[in-house]
C-alpha cells in the first residue's frame, strides 16, 4: 500500500478511532477521565475507556482498596464453602495491561466548576469528564442504636464484601449449636435484591452440616421475597425445613446492640445469638456530597444513553448508586454493563459525536441455594426513546425451572468471566 492511500484510509478511520496508531498503553496525552470507585461499574468503565479509545484517553481510577473483593459469591464465604481469596482479584492488571493510572485513596469532593476531583489525602485530579461509581452507603440514621460506639463492629451488615464478610463468618463459627441467626432485610430498593435470600440458604446450609439444631430467621421489611421468590421458598421447604423461617412485613427500626435485640415497626422485639442487619441504602457518600443523589436524596438520576448525571454536567454515575430504570436490578452484572455503556458514550462525547442511540444489555444473576445448586434470573434491557429510559424487552428473560448443579457450574463460570472482563 502506498503512503497516500494509507493517509486516506487513516482519515476514513478517524471517526472510529481516536489518534489511532500513535498511542500505546501508558502513553496518554489525550482527554482526561477520572473514575471514582473500582467496583464492577468503575473498574469496567476504566478498562473499556482505555481499550475502546485505542488507549488514547488518559484514565485515572481512584480506589481505596488494594484489591477487588467481589460481593457476588461472598455469601459462600459466609456459608464456608469458599474463601475470601477465591473472591479477590488484584487491580494491577488494569494498570499493567490497560495503562489505567491507579490512585489508592478516597475522593473527598468533586469541584464541577473547576473540573477537578479532590483527594482525601490531599491533591487534585483534573478531568474532562468524571465517572462516579461509588456503590452504596448505609442510612444509619434509620437505626438509631447502630450509631452507638462499637455497635457497627458488633452487629454486622456483611453487605460490602471484605472484612465484614469474614467477621460474620467468624460469628457463625463461634455460635453454639441451637442458636438463632436473625437477618433483617430493608425495604427495596437495595443492592442485590436476591442477596439476602441466598445468604439465608448459605447460613442454613452451614447449620445443616455443622449446627443442625440452629435456626435462620429471615425478617423482611418487604411484603414478600423480592427476587426468585418461589425458588427460594422451595429451597427453604425442601432443603432447610427445620432451619429457615421466613417472616415478611418485619420492618426493623432499631437495634439494641447490648442485648442483641431487633426492634420492629409493628412486630415484637426479637433477640438472637447472631444478628445480621442489612440497613437501608443510598448512593455512596461522594455522590450524595456532590449533589448527584436527586431521587429522594438517595439515588442518582442519569441519562441512560450516557450515564451523565441529570444534576451536574460532565459527571457520570454508574452502578448501584443510580436511580434504576424500571425492573433494572442493582446488580454487579448490571454495573458492569453500565460501565461499558458509559465508556462508549464518554469516548463519543469527547470526540464530538453522539452516543449510541440504542443501548441493549442484559442481566444474569445466579443465587446459590446450597454449596453447589443454583437458580438464576435473567433479563434483557433496551433503551426506549419515547420514555427516555431502559425497559425490559417484552418476551425476554425469566428464571430457572429448578435449582441445579449445572447452573452451579455456570454460576462459577459467570464469576470467573465477569471478574476478568471487569479487571483483567
Amino acid at each position, binding site marked *: *500500500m502506498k503512503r497516500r492511500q494509507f493517509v486516506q484510509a487513516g482519515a476514513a478511520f478517524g471517526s472510529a478511532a481516536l489518534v489511532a496508531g500513535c498511542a500505546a498503553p501508558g502513553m496518554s496525552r489525550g482527554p482526561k477521565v477520572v473514575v471514582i470507585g473500582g467496583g464492577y461499574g468503575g473498574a469496567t468503565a476504566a478498562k473499556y475507556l482505555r481499550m475502546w479509545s485505542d488507549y488514547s484517553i488518559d484514565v485515572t481510577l481512584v480506589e481505596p482498596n488494594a484489591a477487588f473483593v467481589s460481593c457476588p459469591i461472598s455469601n459462600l464465604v459466609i456459608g464456608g464453602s469458599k474463601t475470601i481469596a477465591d473472591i479477590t482479584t488484584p487491580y494491577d492488571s488494569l494498570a499493567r495491561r490497560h495503562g489505567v493510572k491507579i490512585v489508592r485513596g478516597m475522593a473527598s469532593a468533586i469541584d464541577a466548576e473547576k473540573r477537578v476531583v479532590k483527594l482525601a489525602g490531599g491533591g487534585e485530579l483534573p478531568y474532562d469528564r468524571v465517572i462516579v461509581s461509588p456503590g452504596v452507603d448505609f442510612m444509619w440514621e434509620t437505626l438509631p442504636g447502630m450509631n452507638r460506639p462499637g455497635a457497627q463492629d458488633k452487629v454486622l451488615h456483611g453487605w460490602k464484601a471484605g472484612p465484614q464478610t469474614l467477621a460474620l463468618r467468624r460469628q457463625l463459627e463461634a455460635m453454639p449449636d441451637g442458636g438463632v441467626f436473625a437477618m433483617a432485610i430493608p425495604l427495596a430498593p437495595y443492592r442485590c435484591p436476591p442477596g439476602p435470600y441466598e445468604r439465608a440458604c448459605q447460613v442454613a446450609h452451614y447449620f445443616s452440616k455443622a449446627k443442625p439444631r440452629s435456626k435462620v430467621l429471615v425478617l423482611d421489611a418487604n411484603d414478600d421475597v423480592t427476587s426468585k421468590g418461589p425458588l427460594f421458598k422451595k429451597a427453604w421447604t425442601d432443603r432447610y425445613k427445620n432451619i429457615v423461617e421466613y417472616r415478611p412485613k418485619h420492618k426493623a427500626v432499631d437495634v439494641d446492640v447490648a442485648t442483641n435485640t431487633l426492634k420492629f415497626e409493628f412486630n415484637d422485639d426479637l433477640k438472637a445469638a447472631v444478628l445480621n442487619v442489612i440497613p437501608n441504602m443510598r448512593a455512596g457518600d461522594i455522590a450524595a456530597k456532590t449533589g448527584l443523589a436527586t431521587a429522594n436524596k438517595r439515588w442518582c438520576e442519569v441519562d441512560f444513553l450516557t450515564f451523565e448525571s441529570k444534576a451536574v454536567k460532565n459527571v457520570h454515575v454508574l452502578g448501584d448508586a443510580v436511580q434504576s430504570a424500571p425492573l433494572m436490578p442493582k446488580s454487579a452484572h448490571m454495573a458492569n454493563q453500565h460501565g461499558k455503556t458509559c465508556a462508549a458514550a464518554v469516548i463519543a462525547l469527547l470526540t464530538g459525536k453522539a452516543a449510541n442511540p440504542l443501548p441493549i444489555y*442484559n442481566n444474569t444473576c445466579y443465587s446459590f441455594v446450597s454449596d453447589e445448586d443454583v437458580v438464576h434470573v435473567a433479563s434483557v434491557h433496551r433503551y426506549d426513546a419515547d420514555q427516555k429510559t431502559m425497559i425490559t424487552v417484552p418476551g425476554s428473560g425469566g428464571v430457572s425451572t429448578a435449582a441445579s448443579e449445572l447452573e452451579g457450574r455456570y454460576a462459577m463460570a459467570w464469576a470467573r*468471566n465477569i471478574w476478568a472482563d471487569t479487571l483483567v
Partner: protein
Amino acid sequence: MHRFRLTAACLAIALPAAGSLAQAPDALQVRSWAGACANCHGTNGNALAGNEPLAGMKREDIVQKMLDFKNGRKPATVMHQLSKGYTDEQIAAIAGYFAAQKKGTP
C-alpha cells in the same frame, strides 16, 4: 489484497455512519451491543473456562445457535431467555463482531 481488505473495512465502518442509524447499526454500536455478552463470554469473546468462547467463531454458526435458542430448538439454562431480547438483525450484527475477533488470552 491488503488494499482491498482495508478499503472494505473502511466501507463497513463509513457506510452505516452515513446512513440512518435506526436502519443499519454502525460498527461502534455493534461493538457496544457485543460488549454486553462479555460478562459471561469474555472480553471480545475470549471466555475463560466454563462458558463458550465466541471470538473467531463462524458468524453463521453463532447466528444459528442464537436462533435455535430463541426458537426453542436448542435447550439452555439462560440463553433461551436472553436470545429472545434481541432481533434477528441484532443477532446477525453481534455475531459478525465476534467472528471478526482474534482468539486470544482472555
